[in-house]
């Protein structure tokens, strides 16, 4: 099989303000064969998206490219814009992360697929429509003929991504570039999309360059893997070999920070990504690597091929070592706990569209008849897909929305409280939201944001000292207190949000998808931090997430929510061992598992 795409020493520098261009990708070499999927993996700032965009020549203005990108026999970096336009769609097509932003909301999907098709094919409208129908069927849209004239908003997130894929396939490209196509989708849907791309590439003998930050997504489908860190390749090679025994310390750490069912401890990668302006001369992972030696910091390490993968490392891990992420921990059910939070007959209705002609009673319930008890010091996981009501449950507990039923904290019903005493009881439950950028006022300095709970309480003494203690506790340097939220990373912002919640002295924290917008290694560090905090302080958590593996890592007990109802609730270990509800089984099946690849033969490529 010949290479569909071959990148040779591809380097990209992007303009930053008025200063000279900053290198974001250095000397990338890779090739994608026909009918194969290459996963290009890296965290924020690794340069993975830049690599994908530079193949399509969709880089921001002022970007400097060097090296070659061969699509078949054509060097894409040497083409002028009209020639490049003929390549896009026909030679290579791209699928983006957010299909809602990439589809035109005011036109039917048929017209958009037809348009994509007719850019490169002089087909009659009738033939183009037939092709659109054929494509929608191919990407697995049920009852495709009836849905041709629907608009994008009439499709669910997963179905929209299928429409995007149909558009990308319309002209029969030899290469499909998929940039995080499953990020933001529910795990069950994400799995289906992965299976779809996995199937199409073989049926159509198409090469796939799959860009992602999440290794667990590509574990089943990638034929080969290429890992980037801070703009440089660290390890590449066969997928099965890579997942069985990663050899670069960064690959190992990255795999170890993916939450898996039954995992004892996620791996922390200490430190931060080096800034593009101040990257070390040698191995870029040098400062964060647990195995580093002084000579690692001199020059980029020569690639060392062995056992099916190549690691750019002076001291790669032996191919026979047993990676740390295989250690498991049996989670025994904890001792009986005294009840802290009690929820009785909780129901919430949607109130958004209630009006003269649609009384609230006719609206569907977001939550129906929820009853559960949270023990002191317990972490209760709440899982469910989008729209299952899991965030609504969190907001009801926080008293942010009106509800029917009773929520009691230490036996005291919120409904019986008014004014100051109600505020005081509310304050004992704090919250950490999903989007770290939204959790902090962009115009208030970090130290002031953390001190705000002190200013709003009776004890206003020693604020600076207490802020620094909290910053230290969440693993941040007190120096960061003087910055505005715009000047910190997403992971740091989330730590600050946790520090701010802790400053209120809560007994329970509602964690609403606290890590789902973060890179895996950042997620691992935050989850570990939250775990340690709970042990140190006896805090209880309600952890809301669509990621079953994350919940199973954190929670003592898990409640599975579906369509506003708790369909199953049990101790974590018992739930995983014997899930009773079909939906629970599907969630567990979609979550990354611990697999001992050393004792089993390398898994072949599976399809759904």
């Amino acid at each position, binding site marked *: 099989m010949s290479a569909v795409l071959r990148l040779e020493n591809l380097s990209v520098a992007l303009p930053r303000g*008025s200063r000279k261009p900053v290198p974001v990708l250095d000397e990338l070499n890779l090739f994608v064969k026909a009918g194969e999927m290459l996963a290009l993996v890296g965290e924020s700032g690794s340069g993975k998206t830049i690599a994908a965009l530079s193949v399509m*020549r969709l880089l921001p203005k002022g970007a400097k490219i060097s090296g070659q990108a061969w699509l078949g026999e054509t060097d894409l970096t040497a083409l002028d*814009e009209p020639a490049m336009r003929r390549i896009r769609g026909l030679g290579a097509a791209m699928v983006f992360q957010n299909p809602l932003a990439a589809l035109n909301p005011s036109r039917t999907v048929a017209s958009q697929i037809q348009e994509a098709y007719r850019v490169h094919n002089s087909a009659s409208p009738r033939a183009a429509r037939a092709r659109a129908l054929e494509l929608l069927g191919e990407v697995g849209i049920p009852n495709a003929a009836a849905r041709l004239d629907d608009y994008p908003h009439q499709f669910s997130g997963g179905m929209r991504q299928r429409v995007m894929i149909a558009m990308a396939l319309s002209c029969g490209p030899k290469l499909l570039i998929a940039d995080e196509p499953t990020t933001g989708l529910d795990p069950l849907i994400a799995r289906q999309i992965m299976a779809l791309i996995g199937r199409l590439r073989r049926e159509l003998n198409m090469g796939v360059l799959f860009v992602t930050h999440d290794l667990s997504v590509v574990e089943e489908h990638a034929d080969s893997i290429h890992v980037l860190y801070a703009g440089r390749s660290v390890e590449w090679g066969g997928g099965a070999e890579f997942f069985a025994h990663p050899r670069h310390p960064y690959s190992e750490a990255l795999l170890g920070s993916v939450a898996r069912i039954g995992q004892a401890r996620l791996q922390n990668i200490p430190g931060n990504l080096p800034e593009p302006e101040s990257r070390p001369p040698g191995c870029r992972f040098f400062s964060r690597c647990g195995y580093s030696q002084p000579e690692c910091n001199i020059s980029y390490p020569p690639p060392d091929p062995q056992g099916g993968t190549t690691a750019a490392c002076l001291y790669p891990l032996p191919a026979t070592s047993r990676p740390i992420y295989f250690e498991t921990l049996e989670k025994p059910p904890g001792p009986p706990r005294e009840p802290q939070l009690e929820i009785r007959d909780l129901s919430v209705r949607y109130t958004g569209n209630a009006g003269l002609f649609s009384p609230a009673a006719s609206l569907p319930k977001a939550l129906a008849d929820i009853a559960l008890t949270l023990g002191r010091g317990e972490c209760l996981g709440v899982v469910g897909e989008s729209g299952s009501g899991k965030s609504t449950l969190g907001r009801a507990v926080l008293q942010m929305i009106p509800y029917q039923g009773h929520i009691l904290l230490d036996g005291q019903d919120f409904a019986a409280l008014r004014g100051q005493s109600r505020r005081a009881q509310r304050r004992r439950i704090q919250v950490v939201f999903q989007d770290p950028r939204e959790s902090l*006022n962009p115009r*208030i300095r970090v130290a002031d944001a953390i001190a705000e709970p002190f200013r*709003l309480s009776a004890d206003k003494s020693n604020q600076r000292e207490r802020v620094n203690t909290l910053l230290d506790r969440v693993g941040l340097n007190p120096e960061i207190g003087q910055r505005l939220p715009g000047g910190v990373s997403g992971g740091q912002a989330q730590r600050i949000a946790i520090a701010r919640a802790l400053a209120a002295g809560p007994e329970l924290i509602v964690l609403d998808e606290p890590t789902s917008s973060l890179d895996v290694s950042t997620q691992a560090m935050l989850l570990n931090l939250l775990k340690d905090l709970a042990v140190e302080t006896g805090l209880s958590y309600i952890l809301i997430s669509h990621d079953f593996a994350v919940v199973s890592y954190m929670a003592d007990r898990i409640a599975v929510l579906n369509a506003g109802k708790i369909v199953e609730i049990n101790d974590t270990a018992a739930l995983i061992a014997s899930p009773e509800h079909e939906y629970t089984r599907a969630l567990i099946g979609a979550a990354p598992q611990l697999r001992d690849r050393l004792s089993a033969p390398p898994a072949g490529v599976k399809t759904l």
Partner: protein
Amino acid sequence: MSEISLQSSAGMPAAPLGRLLGWLGVRATLVTGLAIGLAIIFLGFAGPSLYPVDPYAINPAHALQGPSTSFPLGTDELGRDELALLLSGGFATLVVALPAAILAFLTGLAYGLAAGLGPGWLDRLLMRLLDAILALPSLIILIFFASLVTLNNTSLILLLGFISWPSLARLVRNETLAQRGRDFVLATEQLGASRFYIARVHLLRVMAPILVVNGTFMVGDSIFALSALSFLGLGVQPPQVSWGSLLESGLDIIALDPWWLILPPGLLVFGALIAASLTGQGLLARYGGTR
């Protein structure tokens, strides 16, 4: 990496020059606006003491003289020194227009915050009321009320302050609704903060850019409205002069072509409007996006 905008890299003109011009444009707008505005405010408040000539000294022997060394901007039909009149009129204009703008600003802000943070019925009530006020032509209303009351600085400030707040109120209300659902506001409520605290500490800070920009525009509006009223004889009352009344008295005798009596007050009103507009636009371009 969604922050990368998907633009084609080829076939585009060189970017740095355009960006430089854009940056200079914003700078120039802001600097020009501020310079004109500060100059006018300086002249209005410090002018009378820097040019201590009695503006009301009548001297028929020198009536209607063009600019000369003894009368830098000539004299009016009563022989009064036009420059001294302009400076005195400037002070009279600013001393009403600035407090009126501040009053309108505070009214609009409080009204908008009350509607945005209050219960739903209050919001609906206040907004319908606002619709009714906005439906009336403000200058006509102003003239109507000005003809009913005794005109002095206090009543003029109240009148002018009353007409220009509704648009700010609507803006603040909409912005409040957009901001109050944001996570950091919800998290602050969870800390037990009152709505007043949230408005004061959080909403005002995130709204600061639009407030500053609109406040600047309101100063311009206020100067213009006062000049228009004075021109119609309903503003600052004689014997005190203002830019509007000076313009009017110059136009009364336009047949005699006294350009030195018409051009300077006209230019000052025009300059004040331009200054407010440029400053506002410059601030908007420079800081408006960082919310």
